[in-house]
């Protein structure tokens, strides 16, 4: 596709995202079947989630609490009364012939997320956060008769979802990417979902249209589906925006339709519109009572909210004096942020702790193929190690060796330092003894130094460090050498 640069700047894209997130409840939203991922197909099913006649749904309290948590963290207003509705459509992985969702009275609405792209902060509106049930899973490939048959696994049928609908406030694929990243970080902090796009616990559809930049009205939108990674989202949006601009430029009209992203061919395809006639004939779900949220329950959930990433980032930057980039990196996951705080609480200097966590520790973990969340090193031990570095008991290079051992052996830093005899030598007498030996053995260099070639001092420091296997405190070595040589 070739759209000229001028055409590209003439238009702007209008993007809204619909994000579906599986909640981390133990049981399904309307029945007591397990939500465990990866079990044998159709082994976590019952009359309710199989859609057998006469089975009645009962709402899971925890699903409501988690949805509320997400809604509050996304600055939404919780409706004291909401209700469920049936969304009617036919698909084999939807055994009842309708999905229980929320329609005209959702759980919550009118929230926002702040994003920052290229230094520009923007508030992206959130239209609503509502509760619904997931459908089962259709497998269209991988079986000998896949040409003719689809295989249906209903373990996922009835897993609780929240749908988070954004306002059409996003303008570029980068903004969409940033929005989804922020959203994911928040949900991970709340521990309401594991937000794994590959496993499908976070799914994203995008509504996209283009218009002449600044025009008041929206263009005709398409809905792009099958965006199962952050990268696909960006690529599919870029492709779809370009496709629409090209059509508008050449005088064609855009069709309102659902399009699928094909990652192999790097393009979107229109889906047969007949099969996806968007007339869901919503009506109130008669099998469920309206959902009433009391003020007490709402406040109880609000109190349970953890400190959110943006506020934590701000605090790390201001109270701990960390560079903004470090503060951002440390708060990407709640576990990392909390670990950092524990290390600081354990007595480590914040900047030193940030450096070691983001650089040496991350590097060593990767080298040892150990995950951060396996916590091979306790925060208290980490703090102790950094205290040793701060007090110059051991050098940075040695500390790295010690940390490597801590990861492998899970021993404390004191023990490793003692066992390996790695304490830094801070005893002036000991250092002086070594220095005198070095001086005696190298009369030529001594002469050079005394003739004014003071750079030779560095060479002497190196010799002493070598003789002490790097354990001498380099600053002390330098002081002692100067005294001995002059």
């Amino acid at each position, binding site marked *: 596709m070739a759209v000229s640069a001028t055409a590209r700047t003439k238009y702007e894209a209008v993007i809204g995202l619909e994000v579906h997130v599986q909640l981390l409840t133990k049981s399904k939203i309307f029945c007591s079947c*397990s939500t465990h991922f990866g079990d044998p197909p159709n082994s976590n099913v*019952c009359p309710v989630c199989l859609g057998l006649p006469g089975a009645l749904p009962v*709402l899971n*309290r925890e699903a409501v609490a988690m949805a509320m948590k997400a809604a509050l963290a996304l600055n939404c207003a919780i409706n004291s009364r909401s209700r469920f509705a049936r969304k009617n459509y036919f698909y084999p992985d939807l055994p009842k012939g309708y999905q229980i969702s929320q329609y005209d009275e959702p759980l919550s609405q009118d929230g926002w997320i702040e994003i920052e792209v290229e230094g520009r902060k923007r508030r992206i509106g959130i239209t609503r956060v509502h509760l619904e049930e997931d459908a089962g899973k259709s497998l269209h490939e991988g079986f000998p008769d896949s040409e003719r048959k689809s295989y*249906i696994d209903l373990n996922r049928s009835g897993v609780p979802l929240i749908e988070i609908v954004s306002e059409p406030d996003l303008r570029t694929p980068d903004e969409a990417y940033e929005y989804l990243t922020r959203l994911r970080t928040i949900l991970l902090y709340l521990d309401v979902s594991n937000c794994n796009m590959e496993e499908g616990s976070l799914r994203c559809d995008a509504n996209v249209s283009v218009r002449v930049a600044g025009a008041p009205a929206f263009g005709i939108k398409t809905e792009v589906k099958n965006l199962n990674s952050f990268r696909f989202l960006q690529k599919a949006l870029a492709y779809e925006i370009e496709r629409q601009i090209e059509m508008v430029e050449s005088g064609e009209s855009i069709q309102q339709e659902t399009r699928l992203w094909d990652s192999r061919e790097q393009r979107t395809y229109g889906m047969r519109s007949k099969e996806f006639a968007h007339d869901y004939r919503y009506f109130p779900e008669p099998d469920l*009572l309206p959902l009433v949220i009391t003020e007490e329950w709402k406040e109880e959930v609000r109190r349970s909210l953890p400190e959110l990433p943006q506020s934590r980032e701000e605090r790390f930057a201001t109270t701990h004096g960390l560079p903004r980039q470090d503060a951002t990196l440390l708060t990407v996951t709640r576990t990392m942020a909390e670990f950092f705080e524990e290390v600081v609480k354990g007595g480590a200097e914040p900047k030193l702790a940030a450096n070691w966590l983001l650089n040496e520790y991350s590097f060593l973990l990767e080298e040892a193929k150990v995950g951060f969340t396996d916590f091979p090193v306790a925060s208290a031990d980490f703090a102790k190690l950094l205290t040793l570095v701060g007090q110059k008991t051991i050098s940075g290079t040695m500390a790295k060796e010690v940390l490597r051992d801590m990861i492998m052996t899970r021993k404390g830093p004191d023990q490793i330092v003692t066992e390996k005899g790695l304490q830094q030598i801070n005893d002036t007498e000991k250092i002086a003894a070594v220095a005198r030996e070095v001086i005696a053995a190298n009369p030529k260099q001594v002469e050079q130094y005394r003739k004014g070639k003071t750079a030779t001092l560095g060479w002497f420091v190196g010799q002493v460090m070598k003789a002490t296997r790097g354990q001498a405190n380099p600053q002390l070595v330098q002081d002692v050498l100067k005294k001995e040589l002059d």
Partner: protein
Amino acid sequence: MALTEKDVRYVADLAHLELTEEEMKKFLPQLDSILQYMEKLNELDTSQIEPMAQVTYPSSQHPSLRADAPRKTFAQEEALANAPEQGAGSFKVPRVIEREE
């Protein structure tokens, strides 16, 4: 008659029903009379009444919510017992996905 043949075809289509000409002749007036009967309700003034979908509401004593405690119900074989066709622990249905440009 307010209802048209086109309306009936549309609704039948959404329900995946195929109607013969005869069935159409039979159902069109039937559906129309049902709708007309419902229209009658619109003659009442309900402007002062709060819309409601249910007649019962949960109370704080009976919030009608379930605890999040998983429980096993069907084994895979039981779940699939009535399936017209099955394989690899799954329900088998005619292939569904199709697309076109």
